[in-house]
């Protein structure tokens, strides 16, 4: 098969295609389609969307929990360090040295 043959085949295919009629399928399509839109809107978000939203919410919650945990740990750690430093007696030594 050469290029003109293929072009000729396409010409004939286009002619046949122009006669194709989908009136039966098109009939009432907009009614079926809008009914489907209404039904989907009434059902609310799809379960998949809800799962994604829940996952995002959960991730944000875990992130906040982690931040809070770190922030809550640090003052305690600092306080523990200061207590240990005081108990070691080094502070007394430093005070004497300074005086």
């Amino acid at each position, binding site marked *: 098969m050469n290029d003109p043959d293929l072009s000729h085949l396409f010409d004939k*295919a286009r002619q046949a295609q122009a006669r194709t009629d989908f009136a039966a399928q098109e009939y009432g*399509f907009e009614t079926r389609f809008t009914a489907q*839109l*209404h039904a989907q809107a009434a059902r609310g978000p799809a379960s998949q969307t809800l799962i994604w939203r829940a996952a995002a919410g959960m991730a944000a919650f875990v992130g906040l929990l982690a931040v809070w945990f770190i922030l809550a740990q640090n003052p305690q750690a600092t306080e523990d360090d200061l207590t240990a430093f005081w108990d070691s007696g080094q502070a007394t030594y430093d005070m004497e040295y300074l005086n």
Partner: protein
Amino acid sequence: MVAPVRGEAPDSSVRSPATPMSTPSPDHTLVLAARSGDMAAFGGLVALYKTRVFATAAKYARNHHELEDLAQDIFIKAWKGLGTFRGEAPFEHWLMRLAVRACFDFLRRNRTRREKEISRDALIESGHPGMDGIGAPEIVEETEALLEVRRAMTLLAPKERHVLTLLELEEKTVREVAELTGWSETNVKVRAFRARQSLKKYIQRLRQTRLSND
């Protein structure tokens, strides 16, 4: 999920540039209403453009179920994406660009399945004029040509099939195909060349198979 496009004020810039301000296109009011979430108005747009959408989708679907599903998919995408329609081009252009992209997605999704189904083309085989050999010889011949082209095109890679459908069956120019697909013009030309080479090979193979079966 179909999220209604709500909470957006009707955009006064939504108009067809092809028509002057004083005579807005017939779909202008419907587009504005649909953008604010009016499903009935969107139904009006579906009624206006369904024939064009069905004609495009029919070049990719192989039976009536696929055709209806694909048309629905296109209009659902249009409904969801209405918020992105800025009115710089006519609504029809925007919709058809979206339709072409949805058809390409459909081709890619169904590629594996359709390679096994080259013998069935229910969309054309059922009730197409000239299909049962009745009618003027040229009509019968043209219908057979359409079936042959469609059967061979199912064997092409999605990109090749897409480019040939747009160039040869929809009779778009290279520039139009480039705009619709987002490919460069050179890319379109190269793909079309390769697609035609492959198609010729597949048509010959199908003819040989048919001859040996007869």
